[in-house]
């Protein structure tokens, strides 16, 4: 009577032999999105924290000035999607490594998925429905081009 132990890092369920290898594509996604995110986030930090007066210059007018340009709208939306999915998949890895019990694991992964999906939807809607010159708002809070 000897107890048998699984080999270290034995998967909870055996890897599928057929169909799409989602873990492989997730692995590739982390690397491809990672390279793109380095460029997008370093550019974001440079524009918002280094140029001009940095963080102290950020207000509604600053954001309005940026998002009046489709270039920065798309920059931020691509960054939003890539970063949330990259971060969500990373959090999934941590749940797989550290969370015990099937119900807690499922609940945590569902929470991550919900947070990622809701924030992608919210962020995309905000960027593309943004109105830089809302009517009835004090002109001194708005981008300078609103009064032109």
């Amino acid at each position, binding site marked *: 009577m000897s107890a048998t132990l699984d080999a270290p890092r034995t998967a909870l369920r055996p890897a599928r032999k057929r169909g799409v290898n989602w873990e492989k594509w997730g692995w590739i996604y982390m690397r491809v999105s990672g390279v793109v995110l380095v460029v997008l986030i370093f550019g974001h930090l440079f524009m918002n924290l280094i140029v001009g007066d940095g963080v102290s210059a950020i207000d509604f007018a600053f*954001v309005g000035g940026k998002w009046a340009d489709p270039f920065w709208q798309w920059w931020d939306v691509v960054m939003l999607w890539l970063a949330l999915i990259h971060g969500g998949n990373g959090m999934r890895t941590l749940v797989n490594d550290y969370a015990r019990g099937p119900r807690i694991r499922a609940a945590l992964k569902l929470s991550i998925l919900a947070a990622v999906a809701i924030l992608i939807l919210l962020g995309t809607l905000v960027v593309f429905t943004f109105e830089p010159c809302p009517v009835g708002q004090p002109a001194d*809070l708005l981008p300078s081009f609103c009064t032109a």
Partner: protein
Amino acid sequence: MWSWVLHRITGVAIFFFLLVHILDTALVRVSPEAYNAVIGTYQTPIMGLGEVALVGAIVFHAFNGLRIILIDFWSKGTRYQKVMFYVVIALWVLTMLAFTPRHLINVFSH
């Protein structure tokens, strides 16, 4: 091992900041006053120091992530993984030396 631990810790920290940052930015859709009130809290001295920590986490995660890619795809990556970790730390120090004074001047002189 420490590169692996730091990659996880910085990753989690960045993820939770990202959740908050999307919500605060979404306030531009509510009103200019609402957005300015919340973004004003990012311009206080304490948050200014927090932003140094955040950028430090992002810069480490970025450089170490590129190191991971090189370990995976460069034929000599595993042989030089330790050297590349020291390169990551050196680049991190240089980047933070360039960023931190500039950022703290922006935070404390306004």
